[in-house]
């Protein structure tokens, strides 16, 4: 019981600090964004579970040999006025902290959900009055604005992809298709649920390095996943050009040279320091450099190893918390 709480505390600390920093610096997530996404989710869930579990197990140590017996004893104290003398100050402190942290996490998750929902609804209301449905696309709207902008607003059946006049003017038809496929991939793969969960996680514990690093990594990874979907039907050069045009924020002059994929990859351009990272500022650069100099996807064995780590991360704290109770 005692060692369990120590082990969980160590796991929580490792997942809160060194692991996310190492993962955010690693290069392999760009080669397999899907697996990296699973790993970030496992780190977040296991981190929260071991944080709360460590405090719970420590606090219940005097009243039960395992978590289930401890919780039963605690329920007796709370509901049937059983004597609480077995619990010292620090035990009560740990139990209160565990309860508060759990409530805080759940409450922030719900609060973020309603806040995001309200902002999306307001945004949709204004779009209904300001934007006009696009001539060809279903669920696509065009807004009258000069800068090239494309985004999608998730909302179940009312999801909508919005393009600006400036974007339509700047992009060739194939580039426009790449942008639309990219945005639809966000909607189809339900990326907004990931964005919500990690935004709430960061909102709840903003001082924890892992929450910031995880949110930035996830923002980056979903863009790579959507890029990969776009690459299935449009060429690499088309997608790169679409990204470059939208990112540079200006319409391409008529005289702009048309480049082939070979010309692009031989251009020898260097991205600024730190561009390979997953920071919000580096997202676009790392997307483009990933497209310019593609590296082979992660070998099957490595991929399997990462997936095994994900499962282990979730299974370990769960087993430590529950199995002793089942055996005893």
């Amino acid at each position, binding site marked *: 019981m005692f060692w369990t709480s120590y082990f969980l505390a160590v796991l929580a600390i490792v997942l809160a600090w060194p692991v996310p920093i190492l993962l955010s610096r690693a290069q392999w997530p760009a080669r397999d964004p899907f697996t990296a996404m699973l790993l970030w989710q496992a780190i977040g869930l296991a981190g929260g579970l071991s944080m709360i579990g460590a405090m719970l197990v420590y606090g219940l140590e005097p009243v039960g040999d395992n978590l289930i017996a401890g919780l039963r004893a605690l329920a007796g104290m709370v509901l049937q006025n059983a004597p609480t003398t077995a619990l010292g100050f620090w035990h009560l402190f740990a139990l209160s902290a565990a309860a508060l942290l759990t409530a805080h996490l759940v409450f922030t998750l719900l609060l973020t959900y309603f806040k995001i929902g309200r902002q999306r609804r307001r945004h949709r209301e204004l779009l209904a009055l300001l934007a006009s449905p696009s001539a060809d696309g279903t669920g696509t709207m065009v807004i009258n*604005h000069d800068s090239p902008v*494309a985004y999608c607003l998730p909302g179940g059946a009312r999801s909508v992809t919005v393009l600006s006049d400036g974007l339509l003017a700047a992009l060739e038809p194939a580039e426009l298709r790449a942008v639309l496929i990219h945005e639809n991939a966000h909607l189809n793969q339900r990326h907004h649920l990931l964005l919500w969960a990690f935004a709430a996680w960061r909102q709840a514990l903003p001082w924890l390095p892992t929450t910031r690093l995880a949110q930035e990594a996830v923002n980056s990874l979903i863009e790579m996943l959507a890029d990969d979907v776009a690459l299935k039907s449009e060429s690499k050069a088309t997608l790169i050009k*679409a990204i470059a045009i939208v990112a540079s924020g200006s319409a391409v002059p008529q005289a702009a040279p048309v*480049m082939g994929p070979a010309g692009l990859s031989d*251009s020898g351009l260097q991205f600024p320091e730190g561009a390979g990272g997953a920071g919000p500022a580096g997202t676009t650069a790392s997307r483009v450099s990933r497209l310019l100099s593609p590296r082979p996807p992660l070998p099957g064995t490595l991929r399997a190893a990462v997936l095994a780590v994900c499962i282990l991360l979730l299974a370990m704290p769960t087993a430590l918390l529950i199995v002793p109770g089942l055996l005893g």
Partner: protein
Amino acid sequence: MASLGELERAVMDLLWAGQEAATANTLRDMLALSTAAHGGAAGHVGKDLAVTTVLTVLSRLEKKGLVERERGTRPHRYQAVSSREDHTAELMHEVLGSAPDREAVLARFIGSVTESEAETLRKLLGHS
């Protein structure tokens, strides 16, 4: 009969285009007129429209904070709270802003780009 959403859009278009505040009666007449001008194809928005329907639409728009009414006069006169351009700017501000809590509301094709990144990308396009 047009849906409330279409009517809201039509009423806002009129208020944004017009210079001064208008009463529900005036708006109803203008809607009927624009229907006649556009013919059947462009919309049957104003056809057989009751003033009460226009008032319903106006109160919905007022609740959304898009329309305000002058209470001094009878009947009340309505006008847009801000211009179409201001509302577009408000939307784009929401889209282009980079506050962390805003990033989950919508997914942009390209997020915030630093100046050096934009420079590199411009070079990539062959015009720096």
